[in-house]
């Protein structure tokens, strides 16, 4: 049911906005073009920030240093009854949306989406967002250099999200 609802959201949104615009006698096409033109400025300011972040994060990930960290933390995780397979995803979720999605693909392929690991991965991916990406993009686009405590607040939200995902999945499906 929900898949059906979600496939109607975008078309209906477009329909409502355009209909309401015409109803209010807005020159819908002219206004659309005017708005779309703004994207040039945004993309140009975004690109250097995005390039820098992807460059830094990819170099870091390619060094495989996280594998050593995983090995180090493995005993603690098995003690807490958290499947260790999910661990790389937990760590990467705030850093890189595409890597954590790739890991989720892998988990689905190996364990199946209806396994405990598959469900846990789904909830972790679905309940938090890529903090680093959002931070880079949003602050980069307006030239904010001093980000103050925002990274800590963002990461705290991620940690809370991941921990509650583990608890909730264990309660619902465990």
């Amino acid at each position, binding site marked *: 049911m929900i898949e059906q609802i979600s496939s109607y959201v975008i078309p209906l949104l477009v329909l409502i906005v355009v209909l309401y615009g015409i109803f209010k006698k807005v020159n819908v096409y002219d206004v659309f073009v005017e708005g779309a033109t703004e994207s040039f400025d945004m993309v140009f300011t975004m690109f250097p920030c995005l390039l820098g972040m992807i460059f830094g994060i990819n170099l870091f990930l390619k*060094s495989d240093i996280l594998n050593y960290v995983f090995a180090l933390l493995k005993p603690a995780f098995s003690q807490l009854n958290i499947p260790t397979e999910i661990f790389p995803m937990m760590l990467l979720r705030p850093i890189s949306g595409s890597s954590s999605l790739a890991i989720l693909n892998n988990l689905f392929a190996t364990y199946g989406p209806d396994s405990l690991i598959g469900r846990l991965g789904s909830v972790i*991916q679905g309940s938090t967002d890529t903090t680093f990406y959002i931070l880079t993009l949003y602050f980069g686009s307006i030239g904010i250099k001093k980000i103050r405590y925002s990274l800590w607040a963002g990461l705290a939200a991620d940690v809370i999200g991941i921990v509650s995902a583990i608890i909730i999945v264990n309660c619902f499906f465990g």
Partner: protein
Amino acid sequence: MVNKIWGFLIIIGVVVCLVTGKVDVLNNEILESTKSSLDMIIKIFPVMALWLGIMNIATASGLLSKLSHALSPLLQKLFPEIPKGHESLSLIASNITANMFGLGNAATPFGLKAMKSLQTLNDKKDTASRSMITFLVLNTSGVTIIPTTIISLRMMYGSQNPTEVVFACILATLISTIGGLIIDRILAKRR
């Protein structure tokens, strides 16, 4: 802060690769990251242009201010510094709404415009204001009602019940959003 993290990522990445003898991987990745960032921009660009266009219609027709009016009691509490009726409130409202329906692509341009508008209220242009950070936390905790990507991915891998995780996602996102906002408040008070 960002400077230190970025430096840290690169230094660790390069040094570890060199020590473990992965120079080829390193060279490859340096070139590859330029390509993947361009790919990303090329993917985002047209979608962003489209939604900024659609949103401009919604702004001109007054639909957007209607939406923010509906959400304003909540927004007023979350963003006490923003003057009543300021345009950034309606932009924040549309960003949150788009996120709720899992429209990440539409949410991003709304969010960027909201940030731009918050910047006009900001005294120190190079420093993040409190409202900006609160707005950022709302986005990073990912307020979602319909996690479209997850559902479609689960369908792709032949899940018996692709939507069974939706309620768990909503609950987890709710907890992380509230928790994030509380921590945001605590940190804002401390400094």
